């Protein structure tokens, strides 16, 4: 569930950056070119989907979906707190989560 949580977190960060409100908290005034927006959107939705498939494959449909929603909720709550109180930490945790998820997938 932890690995899936990390993947979901990275996916949510990608989708949040599509919103100018959050993008500008990290890079004030930045305007993303269309292809970057497209990439972020594709990456975000793919990561969210991959995490769901991974959990269902690992834990079965029942447990997998419940754990997916639980991990989604927590990842979302963490992101909300970060954007409200410490936007810069989103990048740090985002990079850590990407690294952690990649390492964990390599291990498997």
């Amino acid at each position, binding site marked *: *569930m*932890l690995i899936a949580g990390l993947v979901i977190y990275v996916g*949510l960060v990608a989708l*949040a950056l599509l*919103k100018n*409100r*959050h993008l500008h908290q990290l890079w004030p005034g930045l305007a993303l070119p269309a292809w970057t927006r497209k990439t972020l959107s594709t990456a975000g939705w793919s990561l969210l989907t991959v995490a769901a498939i991974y959990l269902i494959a690992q834990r*079965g449909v*029942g*447990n997998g979906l*419940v*754990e997916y*929603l*639980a*991990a*989604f*909720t*927590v990842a*979302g*709550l963490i*992101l*909300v*707190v970060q*954007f*409200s*109180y410490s936007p810069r930490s989103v990048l740090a945790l985002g990079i850590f989560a990407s690294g952690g998820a990649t390492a964990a997938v390599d291990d498997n």
Partner: protein
Amino acid sequence: MKNGFRQSMAWLHTWTGLVVGWVLFFVFVTGNLGRFDSEIDLWMQPEAPVQIASLEQQIVAAQTRLQQRGGEWERWGIYPTTNRDSAFLRITWEAPAQPNGARGKRGEEFIDPTTAAPLDARATGGGQLLYKMHYALHYMPRSVSDWLIGICSMFMLVAIISGVITHKKIFADFFTFRPNKGQRSWLDLHAVLAVLTLPFFLMITYSGLVFLVYTLFSGVVSNHYGPGYKNRQDFNNELAGRQELLIERTGSAAPLTDLTRVVQQAEYQWGTNQVRSLEILYPGDSNARVRIARQIESPLRSTDELIFDGTTGELLSEIPAEGVASRNFYETLLGLHESLFAGWWLRWLYFLSGLAGATIIASGLILWVVKRRPKQTKQKNGPDFGFKLVEGLNVGTIAGLQIAIAAFFLANRLLPVDFAARASWEAHILFAIWLLAFLHPIIRPIPRAWVEQWTVAALAFAALPIVNAVTTGRGLNQSIPAADWAFAGFDLTCLAAAALFGTIAYRLQQRFKPVAAKRPAPVTTLAQEASA
């Protein structure tokens, strides 16, 4: 009807949420503590020895004790400590259904597997009582509480759906919380938590209603099977495919088979540690049946079952966990609600979602006040009675309930161990303290009442680990090195609650202080500034 669809929904959301908000807050807080009911059970009976008896030993003890008690029973239940849901070996008994069809009288007992005697520990309602309050409330029969909770849940479902429709920027504001902005922040908090926990919130409310389906739609089953509990039991057995249980007593006595042999067969079939519970139908009758249920390992609450002849011990039938679709749907919803399948990680996440749920309800109630305060405080004759009532009920419910729960736990440690009625007095103390918390805002200005109640709540929860250490010798300094996680977890959670409530009290105090010093003002002005 208000103008426009969204405004109508906003109106509906506001008022359905308000009228049942206080009851729902109680339901959410006590139900959420129920995620750790067994751990609270352990904490509330500190003198009970850790039970490490084998399954066989537990079954022998349970059968011995049930037979010693004598009498004629409809059914017995045996719940060994093979999963976290049973902190202690537990037996239950149920009398035959009453002539009017009502369920027979039930009782239960924790027992010591080494002596087959009732557990030698203080009397307490334990975590089970706290958990049961979230659907059975207290001081009233189930027929009343079922309808009350059913109506409140229905309102809640309406509030959730109308809330989603009202929330215009559900995706744009998905991650948005703007702190320190008064009403804006309350609305953000309410919305962001509700959106992120929406699947949980919707599931827990809808499944909560499904639990009450036999009460809320009482005619559906009884029109076909006849009224009363026993007929409903027959319906359930038929639906599950338990044909072997659709029998009556013969009336001729026959000794019950050796239950350990039956359990051995189940373990042979499923593997060790797979037996969750035993139910013995018509014990002592020649038509006795034994039903063994397997551990719950997924949201589907129904499990594989084995049904044995209760006198010969012969295996009669095997029931698979999955049955007809409607039953699977029902059992999955109930399983999701109860979370008996959840391991530690998921259990804590359930708990977290429950906390978010309680916060959503509390912030909604506060939002109602914050939104109306500017207009209300400008009125010539002061705020309306209704407004003041909501303000007072909010303090007494949101902060006061925390004090009352702390008092329930403190009572468990401080009431004399040999006091006969201590179990019921733990609950009386909870409700007496809660009543005081409702009366307190009448005599104090609302901002002061908030600060004072949160302070008391913080102090009470901070006191719990200390009182526990002094009265039991199983304080944090012992429980952490001993890896006694039920105790350590309980005490650490109390400290976390104390820190949270203390922070709230301090922040509120800071917000009210400068204003109060500048201008010693009447209540209403203070209240107005509290909204800033």
